[in-house]
């Protein structure tokens, strides 16, 4: 397979064998494939359990290209964030059918329902809060992350403009989302601190093995933003899975997560701003859900899973009305 010479060159090895494994679950947007790679010679000599991540056939507009995801993973690793170690990126589509990068495979599960069914896990919530504080130590300018666009107005007003533009591409009007976006516009906070936001830091996007964090995943949406945005995304009702009453990711009370984040970051969390960004979080998830449903509806990628994401809209919009005081 053409992957072999690529890895051999990248790893500076004498020879390489690759055993193709299973398609891993949980990649509605990206395609993740498990590989076992045996490397002889060079700095990487030995057996490696890896993940090959490639772009799915169609993608959604917010998702960053693979080369940028790889750079973000590198920056996170350098900042001390627990991530699957990024190894090599390949832009040549001829190599494995499409561009990809390779990273180390970490153990455990990322499944939100499985993780939250274990009930309250305060230690895990504290660990995640510290990880988030570490992510937020990355600030502009950062050599290697020049591709991240600068804030135009404020992170909130930029997001409102982006989501309105996405809604304008949809075939149907969405009054509840327009209502919520108007509320967000009328109550937008002034410019705050700018940090690297992961923008998908939530239960379902980190791996846990035996209750212990093994890595923060899915860096494809990261960008400069307000730290409250990530905190709100983590706590939003839509990402609590089987633990709706445990407001920090379905695994702990908010106070535990907030306290650990504040201690690690030295910042004070403003609960009003978190509330604001939680309304934004639901608009964002709604827009992503609409885009995912369009992948199915357009005929590009017929899939029951993608189709059903479109019918999550009612519950997301319910939370929008709830957060904007319209219920």
């Amino acid at each position, binding site marked *: 397979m053409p992957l072999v010479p690529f890895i051999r060159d990248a790893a500076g090895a004498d020879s390489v064998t690759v055993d193709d494994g299973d398609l891993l679950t949980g990649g509605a947007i990206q395609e993740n494939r498990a590989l076992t790679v045996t490397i002889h010679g060079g700095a990487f000599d030995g057996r490696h359990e890896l993940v090959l991540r490639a772009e799915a056939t169609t993608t959604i507009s917010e998702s960053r290209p693979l080369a940028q995801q790889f750079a973000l993973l590198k920056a996170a690793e350098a900042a001390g964030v627990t991530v699957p170690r990024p190894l090599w990126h390949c832009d040549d589509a001829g190599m494995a059918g499409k561009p990809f990068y390779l990273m180390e495979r970490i153990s455990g599960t990322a499944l939100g329902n499985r993780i939250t069914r274990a009930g309250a896990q305060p230690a895990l919530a504290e660990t995640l809060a510290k990880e988030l504080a570490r992510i937020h130590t990355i600030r502009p300018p950062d050599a290697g992350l020049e591709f991240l666009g600068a804030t135009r107005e404020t992170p909130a007003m930029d997001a409102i403009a982006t989501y309105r533009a996405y809604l304008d591409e949809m075939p149907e009007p969405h009054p509840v989302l327009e209502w919520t976006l*108007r509320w967000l516009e009328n109550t937008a906070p002034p410019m705050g601190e700018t940090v690297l936001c992961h923008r998908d830091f939530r239960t379902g996007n980190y791996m846990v093995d035996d209750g212990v964090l093994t890595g923060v995943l899915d860096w494809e949406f990261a960008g400069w933003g307000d730290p409250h945005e990530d905190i709100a995304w983590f706590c939003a009702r839509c990402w609590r899975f089987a633990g709706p009453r445990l407001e920090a990711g379905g695994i702990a009370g908010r106070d535990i997560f907030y306290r650990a984040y504040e201690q690690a970051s030295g910042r004070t969390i403003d609960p009003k701003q978190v509330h604001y960004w939680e309304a934004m979080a639901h608009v964002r998830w709604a827009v992503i859900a609409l885009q995912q449903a369009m992948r*199915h*509806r357009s005929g590009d990628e017929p899939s029951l899973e993608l189709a059903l994401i*479109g019918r999550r809209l*009612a519950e997301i919009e*319910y939370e929008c009305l709830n957060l904007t005081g319209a219920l």
Partner: protein
Amino acid sequence: MRSRPDARELLEISERTLAGEVAPDLSNRQRYNVALITAAIGIARRELAGGASAWPGELAALKDLYGADGLESDDKALHQLNRKFAADLRAGVYDAAGRTRKAAGKLLREDVLARLAEDNPRYEK
């Protein structure tokens, strides 16, 4: 307006998934049952092609806000009026407290609650 994909589209893809992916792995007897299920889904799908609103009061509420002049068939009217409603919400037409803002809020609320009851009746509010 309902969320999309709509019932007809969901039944269609369920039918395809059953026939294309589930059935080949089944015994002959179960394959027969799946054929029955897909046939039943097909019937339900066609039957459901009717109604357009989750909340039956949606069209009347929109007409209350905008009047009924220049509207086409009910299905098209729903789309037309919702488009106007969405644009007006964005433009701030409903910002000021008062009767119309209340009416807009009620419309949004009833619509979401009715869709939620269809799409995820066990959702913990």
